[in-house]
């Protein structure tokens, strides 16, 4: 709005701007510190940073255990994407279009892991595997991630479905295609962006996931758990290095995801969260 504001309103604008700057500083400070100190010779802590070096990165790259856990994480994330999408897409379709008994309960149940603390999801699954005498391993982690992340897939695809023009599907049926053909030729292509965006998000969240994984871990570590293990033993600046790398990857993934959603026209995650998670 272009209109004139009184002096008081202009003053409040300045305070708001200042507040925004401070909050952004607060949000990015730890990340900035992490990145800067990953190049810091003497390691973590101490001020000011000096002796810029790539040593910690070199140590990191030589660290076999870390890379093994990265491999595990990638595998788990890929499987989690498959499960979450494989169940999340039908779930979104069901919520958007079908009427069935218990729909309201189903909706809440699917979306619950989004807002429930990870410990509850993790522990309840642990008890399930225990009763079922299933040994903890990467598989159990995959099952945990997949289950928890169905909610993300559902939310994203649901948003995409809302933007879908129903008339296109009706036109397809009118022209003689049956429901399956319509789904494959019309619905799915229109959901392409939503699905890719969801996959990107699920992959990133799975790579970072620790709360649920904590309880379902077997002998093989995922990356966050490997880092966690190291942290228990004491801080090494290697961790800064790997954290910086994680940050760069997350940043890329999320920027991509955001661009995709913009192209699709749905940039608000939260809107659906309020409507559907509630």
């Amino acid at each position, binding site marked *: *709005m*272009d*209109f*004139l*504001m*009184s002096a008081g*309103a202009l003053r409040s604008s300045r305070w708001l701007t200042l507040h925004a700057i401070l909050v952004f500083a607060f949000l990015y400070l730890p990340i900035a510190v992490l990145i800067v100190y990953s190049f810091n010779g003497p390691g973590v802590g101490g001020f000011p940073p000096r002796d810029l070096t790539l040593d910690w990165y070199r140590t990191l790259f030589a660290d076999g255990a870390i890379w093994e856990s990265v491999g595990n994480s990638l595998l788990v994330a890929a499987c989690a994407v498959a499960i979450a999408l494989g169940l999340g897409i039908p779930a979104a379709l069901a919520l958007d279009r079908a009427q069935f008994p218990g729909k309201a309960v189903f909706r809440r149940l699917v979306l619950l892991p989004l807002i429930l603390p990870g410990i509850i999801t993790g522990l309840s699954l642990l008890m399930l595997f225990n009763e079922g005498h299933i040994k903890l391993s990467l598989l159990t982690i995959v099952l945990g991630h997949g289950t928890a992340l169905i909610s993300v897939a559902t939310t994203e695809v649901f948003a995409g479905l809302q933007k879908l023009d129903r008339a296109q599907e009706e036109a397809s049926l009118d022209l003689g295609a049956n429901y399956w053909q319509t789904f494959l030729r019309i619905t799915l292509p229109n959901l392409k962006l939503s699905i890719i965006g969801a996959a990107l998000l699920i992959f990133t969240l799975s790579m970072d996931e620790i709360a649920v994984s904590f309880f379902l871990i077997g002998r093989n570590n995922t990356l966050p758990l490997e880092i966690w293990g190291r942290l228990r033993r004491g801080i090494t600046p290697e961790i800064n290095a790997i954290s910086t790398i994680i940050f760069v990857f997350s940043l890329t993934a999320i920027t991509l995801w955001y661009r995709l959603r913009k192209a699709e026209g749905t940039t608000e995650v939260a809107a659906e969260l309020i409507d559907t998670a509630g």
Partner: protein
Amino acid sequence: MLTKDQSESTASGTLDSAALLDIRKVAKTFGQSVVLREISLKVAEGEFLTILGESGSGKTTLLRIIAGFESATSGEVCMKGERLDLLPPYKRRVNTVFQHYALFPHLTVEQNVGYGLRVEKQAESEITARVEQALARVKMTAHAKAKPSKISGGQQQRVALARALVKRPQLLLLDEPLSALDANLRRQMQVELKSLQREVGIAFVFVTHDQEEAMVMSDRIALLRMGELEQVASPRDIYSRPATAYTAQFIGHTNLLQTVAQGGIVRCNSLSWPAPIPDGPALRSLRPENIKVAGSSGSQDAVRFRGKLQHRAFHGSTELLQIECADGLSFSVRAPARSDWQGELEFEFDPADAVAVRESAERP
């Protein structure tokens, strides 16, 4: 309500200097596009002025500048001699009825109407009394406790009106308030709004793209085209004496004739009539209802022609006939609805009804 004197002086579009609102050379540019070009317009106390124009003509922008939601790129707006455009919107004695009503969804009808009084920190008893009065005036007393989502569009529109009027502004702005209503309700509201305006005596500046609406309601019409004023006049004047071809075509139907005057005779293809005017070409506007089917008792001065009926459009009480003449001229003629109009017919019109109009300037 204008006095007879005021009506006459406004006939030509000008006003004496005691105007309520004085818009002086207001221009507005958004980035690269020029939306308003040096508009100068005066609004008199108590008059109903309509700013009429197509979408993109700049009419809404002009209204928003008066209200204070946009600031002009150049020019001034004065109210009763004092600069209005230097004030923020919440300090102006101007209120607006928004196109989509903009009622506050979390407040009841009553609370909506009382909002403007509450922010002025008026006494509660005073507020209650004035709100009641305002609601009664727009006939919404029964719905005082309802929320906006529970009442119809037409009812919301009345509440928006009450909310603005209860503040007793010096000027009321209405931004296409009837555009969302269906045709019958719209016609009803036009009449109600007009009588309401006479009742409260406040100047109304009404924005619309509907020329019929403008003619029904206004004391004066300001026709805006591509950011410039084409003509400012009373509805009757703007209709019978349009200044430009655009005005003649935008308001009502018309026939545009390319004529040339030479040696006291005006010619248009095979038609001609005497007129004591200097030589030269002129574009003339002739309204369809001024062309009559020739009867036996036609006046001597009437211009006659024959034409073949190509097409008819039935409008209930009248018909619009499309006529092609042998010399290539085509006319629209408004005639009483009769089933036996057909073939070749003879028509006549009074040459005084063929009014000369300017070509409208081309815009980049």
